[in-house]
């Protein structure tokens, strides 16, 4: 069964450092997403990406965040200067259509900022 893969599974970093989280969405999907989940809380939307550009972003996704699809397969989330409150599980997701159909989630990258 096709799956979304994410690396690393866990990253520990010092406050102020840059972090890149990587995702390989399902190959024929067109819409890509990053979500964040602070421990025990809800899934929070960060950004959606389609046709090589951001289609929507939330208030959380400020200028410290950026996304890129550098080649035909990878989809990355960069945090330029991490803060303590960036500690969370980051999920990548993808799907075929914009407003319907299953969102396939990766297993997540846990980011710990010290």
């Amino acid at each position, binding site marked *: 069964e096709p799956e979304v893969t994410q690396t690393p599974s866990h990253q520990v970093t010092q406050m102020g450092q840059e972090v890149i989280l990587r995702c390989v969405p399902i190959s024929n999907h067109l819409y890509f997403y990053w979500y964040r989940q602070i421990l025990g809380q*809800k*899934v929070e939307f960060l950004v959606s990406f389609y046709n090589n550009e951001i289609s929507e972003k939330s208030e959380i996704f400020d200028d410290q965040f950026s996304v890129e699809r550098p080649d035909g397969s990878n989809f990355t989330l960069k945090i330029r200067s991490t803060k303590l409150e960036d500690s969370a599980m980051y999920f990548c997701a993808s799907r075929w259509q914009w*407003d*319907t159909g299953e969102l396939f989630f990766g297993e997540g990258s846990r980011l710990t900022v010290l």
Partner: protein
Amino acid sequence: GQQVMQIPQYQHVQEGEDFTTYCNSSTTLSNIQWYKQRPGGHPVFLIQLVKSGEVKKQKRLTFQFGEAKKNSSLHITATQTTDVGTYFCAGVDAGNNRKLIWGLGTSLAVNP
């Protein structure tokens, strides 16, 4: 702004008891999805409801979409320990932006 309220936040049941979680949207939805997240896991799609008044069943799980397409429920009959996790609803706003709006989730604990 657009919101999807989900209640209850937590539910603790004895194995064999039934469980229901409810979602209510402030706006009309074009469709609503339900996801389950096991402890330590990632959200996994359960189902999508599209039609007004739609009811779908998956074994012991029954999903409903309200007539006005503003509310939905997930009912589990005779819970088992494998049902433990957090259940999220996520609705697509029927307006122009077609945004997917997530509920806060209901965490279900089942005592064996």
